[in-house]
Each structure stands twice: as C-alpha cells, then as structure tokens.
C-alpha cells in the first residue's frame, strides 16, 4: 500500500459502544428508575438490581488539555476510566461503587469543579464563543457566563428552586446553540447598522448581499464609480445576515453592542408545550469584565420566579399564570416600545381580550 492509500476519510465517529462502562453495557435499555441522592449525584437502578451512580460537575466549557487529562485521571481513579459529558458542558463520572462518591467530589472540589446542576437547580449555561473566537460576537460568552454562574452558584449546588432552570447564552443572533427556548436566554445584540467598507465588490457578490437581508434594507449603490451597496438604516434590525455572507459589512461597535435578556422558553413537553423565550430586557450595555448589570438583572428574575412559582412551574409557566404585566413589575423591568414585536406575525402577540388584572 502507498502512503496516500493509508489516508483515511469518512470513517465517521467511533462507535459509542466501546466507551460504555460494563454496568451500562449489561443494563443497556433495562433501567428501572433513578433517584437524585444529593445535589449533583444520582443513582440509576436497573431491572437486574445493578446500580449506576452519576456525579455531575460543572466545567468551564473552554478547557485546556491539561484539565481534560485531570478528568481522565479522576475517571481512572474512581470509575474504571469511564466518563461522559452532557449537552450543557457538564462532565459526568459514572461509578458503581457508592463509597467512592465522596472522595471523587472532594477531588473535584480541589480542582475547582462544583458538583450539582440536577433536579430543581440551575444547570450549566450552554454558550457560544464570544470574543474568544467568533467574528460576529456582540458580547463575550465565557466571561458573562462565568460572572452569572459565580452569582447563581448556590442554585447549582443546592436544589432549592421550584423546578429546573435552563439558562443559555448566544453572543449574537446567529444563536449557535439556539438559546431561544430557555428559561433565561442571554443574547448578544448589535444596535448599529453595518458600515459598508470600501472595496466591498472585490470580496462579496452584490446580489447575494442584497438577497441576504430579511427586511430588504440593502440596495445597490455606486460610490466613486465603483458598484457597492447602501443600507437603508431605518429598515435594519441588526440581524447580521448581511455580515454572514459579506465580511465588508461589519456591525460590531463598542458603544452600541450589548446584551438582551429573554425569559420563559422551554423545550421539554412536560405540562406546557415547548415555547420560545420572550423579551424581558431589551438592552444592557457591555460592561466587562463582570457585567454587573446583567448579573443583578438575572438574579432578580430568578428570585422573583423562585419566590412566586408553585412546585414544578418553569419560568414561563409561572409568568403565564401571573401575567406579563405583573412579571415586569415584580422583576423591576421597565416596559418599553422594544418589547412590542414588529417583525412578521407580530400581531399574534397582541393581547386581544379584556382578560386583564387591575
């Protein structure tokens, strides 16, 4: 065989089967029930009577290989080398020996990884790249998450909320990570229309650029004899679709970029149907490194819900019950014109009944 022939392609991911611990292989599809034993620790009991203990710890999502190697060491020390990650960037250690739970948690604490995020708690914040690695970001991602989770830490390591709390952050409307169905969504927003850079025609296809805009705010233009585009600023809602297809239309702007906060979405079908998050706070300016205004606003929203919700009531179910006007009032949020939808189907969100609380 030649070297070229040895280059492998399209092999796909390795089969998950080789990574399953024996207790899972033996009880695959035959689990009977589970119980949360303490914050961040649950046991799954199989029909065979076998038990699998899961210890869930927070990660920073952005991790160096040294830290992953430490996780591998812990997996070797406590669970035969088996571990997994969750869709929310938590790491889970899979144990069969109950007596190893406490020492594992102690080791994780020494490494700086709190254990929790299960049941009626906040889980880790799903998030995107932000200023660390994204061209489109209107805010940082990891820094905001770190500041918010430092503040809400108690709700991660304890189970004292009425229901689960799912928070997600996307650093722009592209929403890698589709945050739009979260109890609380933190969304980076631009507020200044794209500035057309010179020489646009050399790097972008003008018809593509025009077609990319959902509100038809981009028109062909000629500047200094060269074809380019111009932006009808009154029609721009800062979605950055144009920037996605054409780098010569940047929107990022330190004075006008920041964060919006959305609440009451969910994906689970339990009780109420899955639903989008709705706008709570239109804009908070970026205030790195710790975004204190974002942190306090979110805490206030969480506390209003934690105090007023009935058992099992998710954020959106709670707000539906008490009504949005009262939610705004209790959360101390000023209601503004921006709360009123003015895009497609906007009228669906208008209140068309006389059922109001006075």
């Amino acid at each position, binding site marked *: 065989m030649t070297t070229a022939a040895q280059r492998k392609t*399209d092999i796909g991911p390795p089969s998950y089967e080789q990574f399953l611990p024996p207790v899972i292989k033996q009880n695959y599809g035959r689990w009977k029930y589970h119980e949360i034993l303490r914050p961040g620790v649950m046991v799954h009991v199989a029909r065979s009577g076998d038990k699998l203990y899961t210890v869930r710890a927070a990660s920073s999502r952005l991790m160096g290989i040294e830290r992953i190697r430490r996780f591998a060491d812990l997996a070797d020390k406590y669970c035969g080398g088996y571990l997994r990650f969750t869709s929310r960037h938590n790491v889970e250690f899979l144990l069969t020996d109950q007596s190893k739970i406490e020492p594992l948690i102690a080791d994780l604490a020494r490494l700086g990884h709190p254990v929790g995020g299960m049941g009626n708690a906040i889980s880790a914040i799903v998030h995107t790249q932000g200023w660390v690695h994204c061209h489109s970001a209107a805010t940082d991602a990891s820094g905001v998450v770190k500041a918010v989770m430092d503040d809400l830490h108690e709700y991660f390591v304890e189970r004292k909320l009425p229901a689960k709390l799912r928070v997600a952050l996307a650093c722009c409307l592209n929403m890698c990570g589709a945050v739009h169905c979260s109890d609380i969504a933190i969304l980076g927003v631009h507020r200044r229309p794209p500035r057309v850079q010179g020489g646009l025609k050399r790097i972008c296809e003008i018809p593509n650029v025009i077609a990319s805009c959902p509100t038809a705010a981009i028109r062909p233009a000629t500047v200094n004899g060269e074809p380019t585009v111009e932006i009808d600023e009154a029609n721009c809602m800062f979605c950055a679709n144009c920037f996605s297809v054409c780098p010569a239309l940047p929107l990022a702007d330190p004075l006008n970029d920041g964060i919006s906060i959305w609440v009451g979405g969910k994906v689970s079908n339990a009780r109420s149907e899955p639903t989008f998050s709705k706008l709570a706070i239109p804009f908070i300016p970026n205030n790195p490194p710790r975004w204190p205004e974002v942190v306090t606003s979110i805490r206030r929203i969480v506390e209003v819900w934690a105090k007023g919700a009935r058992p099992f009531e998710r954020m959106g179910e709670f707000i539906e019950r008490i009504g949005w006007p009262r939610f705004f009032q209790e959360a101390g949020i000023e209601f503004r014109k921006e709360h009123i939808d003015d895009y497609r189907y906007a009228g669906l969100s208008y209140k068309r009944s006389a059922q109001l609380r006075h």
Partner: protein
Amino acid sequence: MAQSGNNGTPLLDELEKGPWPSFVTQIKEQAAKNAMCKDLLALLERSYREKVGHWKHGGIVGVLGYGGGVIGRYNDLPEEYPHIAHFHTMRVNMPSGWFYTSASLRTICDIWERHGSGLTNMHGSTGDIILLGTTTDQLEPAFRELTEAGFDLGGSGSAVRTPSCCVGPARCEWACYDTLHLTNDLTHTFQDELHRPAFPYKFKFKCSGCPNDCVAAIARADMSIIGTWRDDIKIDQAEVRAAAQAGLDIHRDVCARCPTQCMEWDGNTLAIDDANCVKCMHCINAMPKALAPGDDRGATILLGSKAPIVQGAQLSAVLVPFVKLEPPYRELKDLVQRIWDFWCENGKNRERVGELVQRVGLGNFLEAIGVEPLPEMLAYPRDNPYVFYEEYLEAEGDEGAAEPAAQ
C-alpha cells in the same frame, strides 16, 4: 496568578475569582507553554478593554477532500498577535451520547498538544469536540492522527451537521428508542452529506429519547426525533402511594398539572385515561419510581426548527406522529431523502428546510414529499378562508373558462 502578555491581563484576572470554573485559568494554564494561547490571552484582554471582538470571517481552509469540519479564523491584528494570525477550529465528531474512556480523551489531548493550541470546547453547540485554534499547515497532520485514532471531523457549512442525542437507553429508563444507535447510524449513513456541503444550507438531526427532549431537538434540529409511546403508562400503585406518603401532593402537583386533565387520584389509586394522555412526561418525571412510559415505543418526527437567521426562529412541527424506530431505519432514511430532494431542488441559498416549508406551505410540501396530511400536524386548522383550491368544476359545455386559474 500567572502574568501573561506584556502588560498583564487585569480585566481577565477578575474572571479567575469566584466559585465557578474559570475559562481564563484554562487559557492561562495553556499560555504557560503555548505561544498561541499567550497571544490569545492578550488579544482577549484587548477585547475586554475595547468591548469589541478581533476575529475576522473564516476563509476557506480544510483538509483534503472535505468541504467542512474546519472553521477558518484569522485575527484582524496579525502583526501584533502573530501566533494566532491563523487560529482555525477543528470540529471532531463526538461519539454518540458523549461517552468516553480516559484513554480516548488522552489520545485527543495528545494529538491537540502536537498540532494545536491545546484549547478545546467540551463540547461545541452542535455537539462536536471543538479543537480550538491551529494554523493551516497543522490541519492535515492533525486530521491524519485523528483518523488513525478512530475519530473523524464533524460537519460545517451547508451540509448535514453532526447529529447528536440524549443519553438514551445507556442510562435513562425513559428512552423510547435507541437514540445512541440511531444517531451513530445516521452519522455513518450520511458521511458524504456531512463532509461535502451540497445543500442550500445546514441540516441538523437531534435525537431525544422521550418528550423531555434533553437535547432540545424541537428547537435546534431541522429534523427532531423525539421518543414517545402509544400504549398505556405503566403504573406501580404501591409506589404511587409511597410517593404520596413521602410528601408529594399527587392531586395538586401531578393530576392538576396534567395538560389534558386525564388523571385521577382518590388517595389510594391513580387512574389514567390513557386515550387522552398526550405523553407530556410530567407525571412520570414527578414519580419516576411509580410511573413509566408504555411498551409500544417509537418516536414522533418533527421538522424545521432553527435559530432566527435568516427569516426568523421556528420550532419543529410534527411530520410523522408516530413511527417505530428500529435498525436499519429504512422508512426514516427514505423520508429524509425525499425531504432533501425537494429542498435541494426548491430551496433558495441559505434557506433552511423549515423556512422552505413556510414559504411553499405545509400542504404543498407534504404533497411533494409524498406524506399524507394529518390533523396531528396542526395546532388547529386554518382560521382564514383564503383557500387555494387547485381545481374547480365546470358545467358541461361551459366554454368560458380555459385552464383553472393558476395561483
């Protein structure tokens, strides 16, 4: 705390305080031995100071024969931050359910130590292992070592994106089909569509084992495959009583919260009118020891969810109310193929499948892919009378009208 960069990182240092794991600490740890991470730290500090990012659009970079899997990234100040002038991301397709052995993680770490920044995301938004930051010349060597170790790249661009799933039957008693097996099977079946973008835009699969939808399939996948069941919820009455004794208010917190009010509790026995149960999972979540999904298990297939870009966000809508999902999943794959055929033929550039359905209308879309319309597909039937009938009757000898009015 370690000093990094020429002037230190006073702003980022603030993010090393507090109980939550710090990404800054992670970057610093790598910066101590990797010049890329040192530059990254300095550039990020600058972004924190200036409140603006410094990354440019990706150019086309990748590995031979693939049209995706690598996200090209360049900073806009390459003279000042030369080690991250190129800082490309490799998306590595994770194993289904994100299960690993320590050995497999170490292998990936070793490869990334040799060929990249040593920084990762565990995991990216779509589910891939994200290897964050390397130079163009390292892509091919890293890819070669990854494939030698049994890993391959995930999707990017206008292609099938890396499918993902919940933990499913590996650990969850509620899984109504084998989410891991299906995800792995779909990923392997569609390797070409995943590695060589040929669609109008991206296409995502997400597989959740039950209506709790732990991987947010209904919000984040063009095709959302959500496990469910058709027969009766299994009840262990003794365990129901035990839950009540342990303090659960079954009437208030279970029955009254059932969306169809199909449960009754007389203090001794729980009765469920299963014909009216919509399989929401609430009661089962509330009493995991007492209740369980039935035995006739399968999935609901929903189509079209997406984030706002381009035309606005959507949740997926029901396409197949119930299907049994067993290997080799032929029925499902045929359906997928018919959807792709229609989308590739009719979709505009950057039009997701959900937006196409919205544009052509669900009725026309169903006709095109050969699926019968069903009332389960709707929240309610239309409430506007502007109906596009495609034909009308003509009295014999009526010469007045020629062709049916085209619309």
